[in-house]
């Protein structure tokens, strides 16, 4: 776990995993957004073997896409520090929320790593994500796309460990450029770090459009 935490640059990984365990083992016990003290979460040994996966496959029913038999469609979600040994690639995903708030009951998050670890008799599959939050309550009047911004906790990104079962599929964010010029030599792999606001592209494919409308 220590090595994974170092690699993900998340020293609080153990606490995050413990909070995740509480959420998984006692679903619906806490009020959403209610602060939970870490001592009330299930304990997890620091020597737990945590595996770090660099990709996951999302499978969903999307008959309007080019799809397999019965309308099933699948895609890869990547979170790799050196994708094809070239540049970092961390995809964004739609995460199902418990309520109907947000984008049709979903939120946008960026996956930093897919993790799996044993606890009790089960193998937990989860993802370390950085949250995005809606920048306003209504879509952008010009394009009709929703706008999100990175959610901050203090001066750092808000991170959480979520179950892979709550991930719906990959999403596509487009930067809100504004009027400023791009710096020369800007690499596209930094796009999801650099901007203050992003459009949630509902025209990425037909299924996304169906999800968001």
């Amino acid at each position, binding site marked *: 776990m220590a090595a994974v935490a170092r690699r993900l640059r998340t020293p609080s990984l153990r606490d995050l995993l413990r909070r995740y365990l509480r959420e998984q083992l006692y679903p619906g016990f806490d009020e959403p957004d209610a602060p939970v003290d870490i001592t009330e979460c299930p304990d997890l040994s*620091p020597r737990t073997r945590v595996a*770090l996966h660099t990709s996951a496959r*999302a*499978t969903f029913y999307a008959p*309007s896409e080019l799809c397999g038999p019965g309308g*099933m469609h699948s895609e890869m979600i990547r979170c790799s520090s050196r994708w094809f040994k070239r540049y970092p690639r961390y995809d964004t995903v739609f995460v199902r929320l418990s309520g109907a708030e947000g984008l049709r009951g979903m939120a946008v998050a960026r996956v930093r790593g897919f993790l799996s670890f044993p606890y009790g008799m089960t193998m937990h599959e989860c993802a370390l994500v950085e949250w995005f939050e809606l920048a306003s309550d209504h879509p952008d009047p010009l394009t009709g*796309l929703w706008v999100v911004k990175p959610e901050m906790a203090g001066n750092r990104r808000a991170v959480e460990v979520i179950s892979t079962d709550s991930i719906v599929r990959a999403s596509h964010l487009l930067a809100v*450029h504004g009027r400023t010029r791009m710096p020369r030599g800007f690499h596209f792999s930094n796009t999801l770090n650099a901007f203050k606001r992003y459009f949630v592209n509902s025209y990425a494919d037909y299924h996304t459009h169906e999800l968001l409308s």
Partner: protein
Amino acid sequence: MFLPALIGYVPDQMIQCIAAFLDFSYIARRPSHDTHSLAAMEAALDRYFRLRDIFIDTGVREAFSLPRQHALLHWVRMIKQFGSPNGVCTSIAESKHIRAVKRPWRASNRNNPLVQILRTNTRLSKLAAARAEFGRRGILRGDIVSYAQRKVRTCFMSSVLSPSHMVSQVGLAPLEDDEDDGADTLEGLIAAREDVDDAPGYHAEPHVSLARTHGVFHVHEPPSALTDRDF
């Protein structure tokens, strides 16, 4: 579709116009429609036709007598009548052109080809029809040996199972019924396909599974090396 990339480079109304058109075409692509989606389609089309004047105002076009854009008006009614087009593409008709025109033309001797092409197509469709009919009657299953085996087996089974031996001798004719799953025939194939589509629970919930391979990182240091820095 990188629509926001155009912001600031073209008039705002043009972006709204294109967004309305995109909404229309993305909804049209859906596999099934209800009153809400059709209403949304009509609303998007309405917006599009209202906003597209910007192309005249900026001098891109002089008029909109474009047949394809006019055809958009008929989409909603046609979907109500005939169902969702579900991403049908004109290139399907294009690929039919190969079988219907190009191959028969190659099969002809290039002398007065039209008559030959028509005759080839007529014969091919008759053959296809005969094939479907033979398949329906169960003639096209396996070869003559397997047919004989089936017949013997059915005969044997019925002689064992039926109470009267007299009946078993006569009971040869309805041999297809017991094991005919119909999968060889065209109708059978279509029925099987529909079974798949309608199977309850087949349309699974979205599901995410991790990659099979992963790097395992576990603590190599002695426990004393686990400092507060990590936790």
